[in-house]
């Protein structure tokens, strides 16, 4: 039963990891750029949801939609003004740009918001559902449901809408996409906006049980990259599988090993997967 509980807990947190990692993988898949600043948008999303809660009294789960919209717009601006310029530049320039962006965003946030930890208080924060011997914390469940919802919405968009199909075409072959009359630059802007917006959304939905401060991204950035590479870089389904796997490994490892070693176990598994399947769990070779 302890095992079922651990898997369940892992699933809950893994859903959130998946939601924040999808954005990273989307940006890479469509644009071929590894966005090292991705986790900073998670922090911004958390702050937006916090302020929406503090000043408008809206629950962070509603604030998450506000966070998505604002960061989506910000993402398009950043793509048009900064990222676009390095699209054809060497990878080193792209790395410098996104790492620089990381440092700038983090320090601007420190200047603007100060370094203190902020936390919301909601009615369901300390309640839980009980299924026989199993417990599920309501804020975890709510975050998981929102993550599933966002994943489903993204799937609908990518699979059914013209824009989604055009974006996938851009990912597969930008030149061919352009020949088919697709505005590749527009698609890249959209992908970047969606990518960072989704990560911001993921940040907002964990606010009911997590605290936010300008350097919170550090706690998630490694996990995000692990989830994405584990599933297969650039593959959306891979990010979902990767995120869930990371959550479940962290949680289940605590049954056998000290909790201190949860990330040690995670990275052992990570190295194992990469050794056996260099393109990730479900990634096809690119």
């Amino acid at each position, binding site marked *: 039963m*302890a095992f079922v*509980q*651990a898997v369940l*807990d892992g699933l*809950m*947190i893994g859903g959130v990891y998946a939601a924040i990692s999808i954005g990273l993988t989307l940006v890479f898949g469509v644009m071929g750029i590894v966005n090292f600043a991705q986790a900073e948008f998670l922090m911004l999303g958390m702050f937006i949801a916090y302020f929406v809660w503090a000043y408008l009294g809206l629950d962070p789960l509603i604030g998450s939609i506000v966070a998505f919209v604002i960061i989506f717009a910000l993402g398009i601006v950043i793509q048009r003004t900064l990222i676009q310029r390095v699209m054809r530049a060497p990878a080193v320039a792209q790395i410098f740009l996104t790492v620089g962006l990381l440092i700038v965003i983090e320090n601007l946030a*420190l200047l603007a918001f*100060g*370094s*203190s*930890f902020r*936390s919301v*208080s909601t009615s369901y*924060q*300390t*309640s*839980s559902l009980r299924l026989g011997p199993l*417990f599920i*914390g*309501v*804020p*975890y469940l709510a975050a998981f449901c929102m993550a599933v919802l966002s994943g489903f919405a993204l799937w609908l968009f990518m699979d059914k809408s013209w824009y989604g199909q055009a974006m996938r075409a851009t990912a597969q072959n930008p030149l061919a996409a352009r020949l088919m009359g697709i505005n590749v630059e527009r698609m890249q802007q959209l992908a970047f906006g969606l990518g960072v917006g989704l990560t911001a959304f993921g940040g907002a939905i964990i606010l009911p*049980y*997590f*605290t936010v*401060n*300008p*350097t919170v991204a*550090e*706690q*998630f950035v490694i*996990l995000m990259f692990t989830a994405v590479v584990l599933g297969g870089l650039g593959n959306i389904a891979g990010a979902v599988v990767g995120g869930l796997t990371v*959550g479940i490994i*962290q*949680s289940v490892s*605590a*049954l056998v090993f*000290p*909790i*201190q070693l*949860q*990330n040690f176990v995670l990275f052992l598994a990570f190295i194992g997967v990469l050794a056996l399947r260099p393109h990730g769990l479900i990634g096809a070779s690119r």
Partner: protein
Amino acid sequence: MKKVVSSSAKGLSTTRRQVLTLGAATLAMPFVTRAWAADPVNVGVILPLSGANAQFGVNSRNGIELVAEQINARGGIKSLGGAPINLVVADSTSTPTTAATVGQRLITQNSVVAILGAYASSLSLALSEVTERREIPLMTMSFSDQITGRGFKNVFQIIAKASVIGAAQFDGTAAIAKGAGQKLERIAIMYEDTAYGVSQAKGVREAATKAGTQIVMDEAYPLGITDVTPLINKLRNANAQAVFPMSYLNDGLQIIRSMRQQKISLPIIGGAGGYVIPDFRKALGEYAENVLSIAPGNYDLAPKLTEDFRKKYGYFMVHEALEHAVCLDVLAQALEVAKAREPAAVRKALSETEFKGGWCDAMPGGVVKFDQTGLNTHAVPMMVQWHGDNLATVWPDNLAKSKAVWTAT
């Protein structure tokens, strides 16, 4: 100076040379003015102003700045001709290597007489390697046992050691439980795996073993943990009477919220850190009520002194601010005694003098005296408890301001 001003005022036909001289004089102005009074004494302040421990660093800086203003308003260090205290504040971030690097920088570039900092034990340990090598006194309120345990000559710790604080965390709890007619038989310990958590957990563990109390859970977890559920699952199955978590704020809040979600209502005895700051109460609301914690100091022991802090910053004087304030006041007293600004003379004064009065009144006993290892021998830890928005000292009896509430049934 004077000559230049008068010559340019005399004739309006200023030559290029005169303009240059004037410009140079203006640039030199700050240095000239400084020479009129006694040169300020540079005191290094290294604290985590960003990263996971930023909030505690900011609190600490507030306490230090309050005391520096008070000293300068009184006319500075009198034995040095009224030299004002000039704080050179640097951000150690929350990374030990950075703490050491900025320490090196303050010593070489700002010729500081002493350094205060760096709140977190892991930062102070890294920093103390540098201050020891360069023979600059380091005054700290970090309390990992290693800080004074390495035979260093230049480190001065204002509060008790982590193992002593950890032992008091258990002993105080046992005493409070006993006062409510209960004997502690089974306890749970959880701590973040940093210098602070590890050494304080050791203190709790040893005191519990000595008292014949069974430790039914003893779990370390990584700093920056993203999900504490596995920890709380273990706690739920451990059948403990009380839980002793040692953590900073983020994980502390997560631990208590997850406990409440799972309807675990054990008495919680925090290990200072995140359990004794106003944000704890703000974030948890009613769930903070009656949470106990050990503390190396508390504002209600010196309401008159600490009220100034509340007025200036709008929240009660948290213990890290209080202890850093004491550090700076003790350093100022040592400078008065030393009558010199050489680090070696300051070090000598720090290790030989018994300090009284001023902010020392906020310490238990009202006295600060360092032994050969640099430990303040008069420091004793105390238990505090959340009563509404206030943190009340409830143990030991000679310091207690309120009666402890034991929530176990």
